[in-house]
């Protein structure tokens, strides 16, 4: 399909542009990265040390050569070496991305599901008391900042009632293989996932509900109602397919929530995830680390964009058939 190929080509071209941007943007940040290597330990670096780091970071080479090194570091998998944290970037990311994904992936799935099903249900029964109440409730929930949700939950469920833990993703002494590990892990993840879901669900719901509400008056829905089909059947066999596209688009976008959006939650629950790594990198001008994280983020986003765009096109028979007419 021509559109298929065009989309793919488009996405890849954008990927390349963003790779270039990921290289250029950190270098536009104000300040000198070598200075941050000892940061505010207020140690003075000798001139020789400054030079050593400057050449280690390749800052004394021309920009095209630095870019070539950057590309090479991406291709060989190490993603560069962070002098500030004294570790290869890939290992830093690998150590932390697991935690971020463990709290964001379930949250993305849960919030999408809640948004889809609740939104569909209310859109179908629009202007019913249930619909109005849900709308009002979720609009209110949407205005509550995520850190507030997290802190309220922590006070209620961790301090007043000691049900959940509030630091890390496991208890001290737990490791895979120790009995009770899975239960302990789930217990630690429950609150962060719940918070993220609560924070993300309202916007998913509102979008789905409004889309569903609009098509609830279409002729085919009315016809299905008249024929006596059950509401569930109508919702899932008829309406779902028509709101699938905005839903899939929204899912694709919410992947960005995976990496950057969980920063506040990771901070409050003291989960050492990617959010802090990126902000550390930005505020210490750690070019290699910044570039590495940006590359990983971009890669994940591009894959999700390509996938969701293709999915949208693939499931829309009108577009497929429409093309063959034109």
């Amino acid at each position, binding site marked *: 399909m021509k559109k298929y190929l065009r989309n793919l080509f488009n996405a890849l071209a954008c990927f390349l542009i963003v790779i270039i941007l990921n290289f250029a943007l950190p270098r536009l940040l104000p300040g000198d990265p070598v200075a941050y290597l000892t940061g505010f330990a207020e140690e003075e670096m*000798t001139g020789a040390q400054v030079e050593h780091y400057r050449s280690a970071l390749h800052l004394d080479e021309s920009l095209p050569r630095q870019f070539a090194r950057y590309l090479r570091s991406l291709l060989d998998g190490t993603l560069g070496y962070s002098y500030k944290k004294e570790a290869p970037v890939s290992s830093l990311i690998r150590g932390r991305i697991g935690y971020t994904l463990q709290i964001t992936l379930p949250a993305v799935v849960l919030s999408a599901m809640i948004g889809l099903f609740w939104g569909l249900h209310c859109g179908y029964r629009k202007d019913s008391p249930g619909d109005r109440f849900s709308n009002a409730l979720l609009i209110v929930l949407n205005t509550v900042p995520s850190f507030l949700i997290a802190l309220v939950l922590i006070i209620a469920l961790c301090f007043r009632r000691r049900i959940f833990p509030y630091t890390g993703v496991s208890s001290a002494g737990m490791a895979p293989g120790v009995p009770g590990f899975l*239960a302990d892990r789930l217990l630690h993840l429950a609150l962060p996932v719940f918070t993220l879901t609560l924070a993300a669900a309202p916007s998913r719901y509102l979008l789905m509900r409004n889309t569903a509400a609009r098509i609830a008056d279409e002729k085919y829905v009315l016809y299905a109602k008249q024929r006596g089909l059950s509401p569930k059947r109508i919702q899932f066999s008829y309406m779902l397919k028509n709101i699938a596209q905005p839903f899939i688009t929204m899912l694709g976008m919410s992947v960005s929530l995976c990496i950057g959006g969980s920063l506040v939650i990771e901070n409050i629950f003291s989960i050492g995830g990617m959010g802090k790594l990126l902000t550390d990198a930005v505020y210490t001008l750690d070019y290699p680390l910044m570039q590495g994280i940006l590359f990983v983020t971009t890669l994940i986003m591009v894959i999700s964009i390509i996938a969701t765009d293709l999915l949208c096109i693939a499931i829309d028979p009108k577009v497929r058939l429409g093309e063959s007419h034109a």
Partner: protein
Amino acid sequence: MKKKVLAMLLVLILAFSFAACAKKGQTAPATTPETTDAAKPAETKPADAQPAVPAPEPVDTSIDQIVIGTTAAIETAINGEYAYDMLSSGTTQPPLVWQDVDGNYHPLLAEFETADAKTWTYTIVEGMKWDDGTPVTAEDILFTLEYEDENGSANLKEQTDSEGKVTQAKYAGYELSADKRSIALTLASPNVRELGNMTSFRVLPKHIYEGKSTLTEAEQRFGCGPFVFESFSRDSGTITFVRSETYPQPANVKKLVYQLFDNEDTMYMALSSGDIDMVWAYSTGIAGTYQEVLASGDAVRLISVNATNAPAVLAFNNAAGPFADENLRHAVALALNYDDFRTYVGSPTADIPNAGFVPTSTVGYKQTEKLKTDIAAAEKYMEAAGYTKNEAGKFVSSDGAPFTFTLTFRSDRPNQVSCAELIKTAIDAFGGEVILDGLDSASYNAKTSNKFSENNITMEAALFGYTSAGMGMGNGLGTIYVDGRHAVQGGCQVYDEQFQTILAAMGAAKTPEEYNAAAGDMQDFYAEHTPLIGLYWDSLTYGISARFENITVDNAFGLNNVNNWITITEK
């Protein structure tokens, strides 16, 4: 599709309920499973095999475990990682000396003596051993200096960069004693305050590090302190240390667990509810706003210590911009309302600073006048600078330019944001106009310090917070922040002859009396020329569970210090 979703939800619900059931017996959160143990009365154990202990101790009444909450950002937990080094200075890597809250130095890893402040002799305390039993010797001190030199420091040899700039070696020479337990280090120039640098000098084990290009993780956690590193778990965010049985004075705590927090609110809630026993952050006390909340309960005991840091400083750019004119600096200093800073930003123990800028517990402190508000005098200084008040009540110069300046500060530091606001309100009411320039940390650094701005400081006036270490660095009294020639800081951009002369005198002092005299001159200089103003002084407040007593506080490391673990007891 719906069935699959239902099934998934069902599985999740089952998993949660299973987890909840599994944990039902516990009342404390799962992260600190042994906290309940510490609340029990001390166990009685049969006599431990402690051959070195002189006094008869048939019963082990030591504390089982202390949990310390910290917001330190620890990545790898190996020696050499800055944040971890600060933490392990209280457990596995005792520095050479320590300083108590009255400012006196005492031996920790080594005894010290000097006759002329130029040659310092350090003798390793008897009985200090590395984790593998090898005794600590002065050779380790020498090795540490040489090791740092190989990584570019200028301890024993000078370093030259490609442009020919030379960093002089700090030490002119050394002499190891015959029994290898002492080393006499001769400084390139005498320094009466050299011991201050030694409170953070940690020693590397020569027999482990020598000749190796890579080290195992275990080797990089080697220590010679009262505790031995046990584990670091990133999943749970904990670093665990167990008591070393070979340390000359055994600690009174069997196990130390550091719980890493990313968020202060969560940490203080944990402290108030007893999940953790203590909070610690290097060179930082509990913020004033939290102190009131913690003090209101009974669970937490607050310990306040006279601080030598400057939590909020208004620094002027003395070389460029409006404040190159001394009259304007005096005018602003007299127009601020210092009570506001103390009340709204400082803690309950905050105080109004003196014109001499340095806090009372600083070495070489000299009493100078307290800062005060005097609008009439301020207006006179404005006139002397060539400004008169127009009908709108604003100051304008002779060619109609209003009195305005930009105040740079870090927008992620709440106390700086508050101070900036108070300054703007005061000066705007006085007749000037302040433009607030709140920046993220990178942009802020690029405007306010030599090192990060590549020697191009562009701020007109900026807010700073100076740590104790920074205040004491170089020749002390915060001069690294004032001296425009300092390679790293130099925010105030002062290049005055007079300043440089006094600075040199401070550096050349051979006795404490000489130093104090020069320091007094420097404080007079500060009072007379106002290159910078302290906005409020505050003590450092530490928090620990109320069930402990006999606490030893260290001037550099607060409650997280080796001696504290030796003296601390449970009530």
